[in-house]
């Protein structure tokens, strides 16, 4: 019987904070660099949503697979993809995680179980079912996580994947990151069944809704659904209610937002502030320790930008490489 304030050990809490803060600094830097014209292509920022990816990924190892979304930087960092390689990839450099050929929406690192961000909405769900089926047939105890936004959750392939995972009893967890907007359309106008728990019930799997801005809420719920999947208990749906601090994409004028909405979110619903208050309030971690991590996270992102800036672009000779893979 423990009277510790948290069921998560101190070292893990420090790691979690470092991950959240690294994601935040990464996204804040991209916001600036896109505006400067330094980044080719579109980027969709995860700032404000860090607690979900971080808390979920703490329950996973490299043997577990995730299928991400167009808003995938947070998932990548939390799953352990190298930050320098990510920044290189987003800038289209040969030093990138996919040698600069994928960009923001196609960052992948199979060695870390990160099957890829995905430019096609909802397309990660069938991939997660495939990874889940593979893990089940191998019997290696692996699980697969499909991340999907509230908008993409209405896509046919997502709904088909819920069905497939349920009938085949796959070790898959469907995480709906509900940030309230499908691009510019409010979730209230776009999701007919109103509740993701209802939607899960319709496919014969349990669903749970948690406050996605509360790291500890996501960590507890994710722990239960992932353990259940790992032990053969089948798929679940986890809805994380959260907020994004930036637009759908960088450059989005966000005319669909109320005046002062983002300021209120940053002030009162920032998952990193909430985490800081919880761990310092309980006296487990000092503010000074967190400040040190803040500085280290910023330094890491700055270093990643320098590294990416200095890296070469892919050459013409790279055009026809990595197109097909040999399974022989």
């Amino acid at each position, binding site marked *: *019987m423990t009277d510790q*304030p948290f069921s998560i050990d101190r070292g893990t809490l420090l790691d979690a904070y470092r991950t959240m803060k690294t994601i935040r600094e990464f996204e804040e830097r991209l916001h600036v660099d896109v505006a400067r014209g330094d980044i080719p292509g579109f980027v969709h920022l995860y700032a404000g949503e860090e607690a979900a990816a971080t808390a979920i990924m703490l329950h996973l190892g490299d043997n577990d697979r995730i299928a991400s979304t167009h808003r995938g930087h947070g998932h990548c960092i939390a799953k352990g993809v190298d930050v320098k390689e990510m920044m290189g990839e987003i800038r289209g450099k040969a030093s990138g995680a996919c040698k600069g050929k994928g960009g923001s929406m196609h960052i992948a690192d199979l060695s870390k179980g990160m099957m890829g961000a995905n430019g096609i909405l909802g397309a990660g769900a069938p991939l997660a079912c495939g990874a889940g089926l593979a893990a089940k047939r191998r019997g290696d105890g692996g699980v697969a996580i499909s991340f999907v936004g509230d908008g993409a959750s209405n896509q046919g392939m997502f709904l088909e994947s819920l069905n497939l995972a349920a009938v085949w009893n796959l070790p898959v967890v469907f995480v709906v990151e509900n940030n309230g907007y499908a691009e510019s359309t409010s979730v209230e106008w776009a999701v007919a069944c109103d*509740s993701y728990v209802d939607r899960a019930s319709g496919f014969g799997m*349990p669903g749970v*809704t948690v406050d996605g801005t*509360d790291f*500890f809420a996501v960590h507890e719920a994710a722990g*239960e659904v992932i353990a*259940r999947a790992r032990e053969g208990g089948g798929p679940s749906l986890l809805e994380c209610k959260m907020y994004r601090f930036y637009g759908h994409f960088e450059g989005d004028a966000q005319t669909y937002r109320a005046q002062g909405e983002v300021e209120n979110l940053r002030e009162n619903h920032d998952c990193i502030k909430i985490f800081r208050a919880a761990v310092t*309030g309980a006296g487990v971690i000092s503010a000074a320790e967190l400040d040190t991590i803040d500085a280290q996270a910023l330094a890491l992102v700055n270093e990643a930008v320098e590294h990416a800036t200095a890296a070469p672009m892919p050459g013409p000779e790279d055009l026809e490489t990595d197109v097909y893979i040999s399974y022989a």
Partner: protein
Amino acid sequence: MRVGLVANPFSARDIRRVIANAASLQITDRANIVLRVLACLGACGVSEVVAMPERGGIRAHVERGIERARNVGDERFTPVRHLDFPVTGTVEDTRRAVRAMVAEGVAAIVVLGGDGTHRAVAMDCGRVPIACVSTGTNNAFPDHREPTVTGLATGLAVTGRVPPGIAYASNKRLLVSINGTEHHPALVDVALVAERVVGARALWRPESLREIYVTFADPSVIGLSAIAGFLEPVGRREADGLMVDIGSPAMDGAASDGSPAVRLRAPIAPGWLRTIGVHGWRRLPPRSPRIPRLRAGMIALDGEREVGFGEDDEVRIVLEPDAVRTVDVEACMDYAARNGLFRVGERRALEAASGPGG
């Protein structure tokens, strides 16, 4: 004659669906419950229902149901007016709506939710009675009953067909105060847990439980009240509550103070039987503040972790009598049946609607 309506679209959505196969009543079913209640209130002559606005889907389905009925000439539902304020999707909507309903002078408030929703309503409803409809997870406070009957009883009560002395029951509550300033009520139970996080809110791990205080100890409900109820049943209408000192699930022999230890198997969530070690328990008399033994942790109110406290905080827990009024459905129906209130043509009976079978 107006009646308030609070229908919570967010109850029954927590982790207990995953760990304990708890029910998740669909939004459309919640809307159908509201329509059944509206039909009964309409039959009793209630002129208007004042409802909490929400964007979880119940309102849209209810309004569609009323419109469809009207389109075919069916006017059996009491008209619904939703209060006009910005929806936040939090418990604040419930509290704000209830304050507005009380200000408008509603005769009762029909509540669809679990213990948590009823708790939120009770925080602001004052002496206005609550008609309880269970759509939550643990539901020790609201009875499990077909809402048609609750709707009928409420209609009979608010229209004065059943005398108030019979129609309404008084209920105890627990009040937790922190440093004499913050006050947090609970209708069924207050639990002190060692962990310092709200987390996924629900309680399903007995290892973290330290102390439980209940307004009533009912062995025929689930949740923390069941633990107390398995030790010593205490009725809803009795003056006392019960307090339970929780130990380790693995404990055996005697407790540290020499008292005999008890180990219980109790359903702390639907279908979720867990072993609970108990150091001791005793009656909790009304109006007698207790100081918890736990020095720091979280306070769970009606089964959900809500408020943290530290070693420097002064926490007091007191049982208050006659704190919340509810519609006594069984008493209303019994009185109505014995006095012919359902017999068409009798004085004070429900009016028969026009049309075949109406």
